[in-house]
């Protein structure tokens, strides 16, 4: 990432709107309009080139807002409650992270905090910011660098895995204790669902969908 201004001038004007390069094998295609439900696949390596996007910018913005509400719930409410001899323990995500930090597993605490809190939060806020402007047909301030950040954060959000982890923990703890899932679990399940919907959206299309307004 070093946009040395002299070399930028050497690169010719963009050809993107008409051409498309398969990310997995570098085959060049001419872009075709896709009908609803269509998926364009690479003939050479069968990777997905492009999907038809049903969801417009407004709907995406609405989805991001929904995710934000659910994310707050998932972090505020306890996830699991465990009872033993009349004593009850509630766990929240931050309770887990703190506990791992104190139990000499700081690496795990950092991993959990990053993949379950920091990165999802950043992704959400960034998308919210970009889309809030984008739906008005404008590029948000800092559009290009933020899109690059979004690209790098992408693979490091793991809330879906956490939902499965909660399930396994409930079953494991249930062998010895009285366990009840709390509101937080349902918020997490909803979050996992929303994330699945999002995973079908190619965020790179935002570059084309929110065109630059010429200076």
């Amino acid at each position, binding site marked *: 990432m070093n946009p040395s201004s002299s070399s930028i001038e050497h690169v010719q004007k963009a050809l993107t709107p008409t051409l498309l*390069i398969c*990310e997995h094998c*570098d085959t060049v295609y001419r872009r075709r309009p896709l009908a609803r439900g269509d998926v364009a696949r690479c003939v050479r390596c069968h990777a997905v080139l492009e999907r038809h996007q049903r969801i417009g910018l407004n709907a995406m913005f609405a989805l991001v807002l929904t995710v934000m509400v659910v994310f707050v719930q998932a972090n505020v409410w306890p996830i699991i409650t465990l009872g033993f*001899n009349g004593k009850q323990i509630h766990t929240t995500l931050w309770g*887990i992270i703190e506990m*791992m930090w104190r139990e000499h597993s700081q690496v795990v605490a950092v991993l*959990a905090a990053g993949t379950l809190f920091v990165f999802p939060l950043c992704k959400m806020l960034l998308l919210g910011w970009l889309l809030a402007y984008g739906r008005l047909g404008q590029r948000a301030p800092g559009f290009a660098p933020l899109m690059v950040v979004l690209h790098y954060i992408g693979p490091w959000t*793991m809330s879906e*895995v956490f939902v499965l982890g909660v399930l396994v923990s409930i079953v494991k703890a249930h062998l010895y204790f009285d366990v009840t899932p709390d509101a937080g679990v349902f918020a997490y399940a909803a979050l996992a669902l929303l994330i699945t919907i999002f995973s079908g959206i190619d965020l790179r299309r935002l570059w084309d969908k929110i065109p630059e307004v010429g200076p």
Partner: protein
Amino acid sequence: MSALPRAHELGLIGCHICGLVCRDTQVEHAACPRCGAALHRRKPASCSRTWALLVAAFLLYIPANVLPIMRTVSLGDVDDNTILSGVVELWVKGSPDLAVIVFTASIVVPMMKFLVLSTLLLSVHRGTNWARTQRAKLYRLVEFIGYWSMLDVFVVSLLTALVQFGFFSQVEPLPGVVYFGLTVVLTMLASMSFDPRLIWDCKDEDD
């Protein structure tokens, strides 16, 4: 062949970050005019980086499996579990289905990553044409399922936070889980630094 031209044959270069198709000007350190990221035909030093990360991940995977990941104390009884014995416990004590899921996430997926990535790297080194479509598919599979290995790390964290009744029962994380977490991160980095375009880079007369 001409039906499926590749970017370098047309003098084009696709930005790895934003997907923009640019003309390849053969200039060193060219930057994408749209997102400002450095343009390169292939991920830089893809093979050596992937090898390094993969070997590091494998080295950490050994203590991750040998050392216990979790200690359960209940009424003074101390019970240390490794990844595998945790799976066995889950299987024996009542939910074989979940045991299969955990086994897949923490044993099958990492092992598969080691096997698949090293096969891909070796075949790229040899420049073979063998089973290219299948190899490309394997790579995409590994990329897609990689992060599910984090499952066991989250389970240990959750149980640690949940079960703390002092003498009666307590769950503590043990070093194995730290090694395992690092293994997962390193394998993810390894699969990200591998460039699947390399699979298709050998000469292809029989395309």
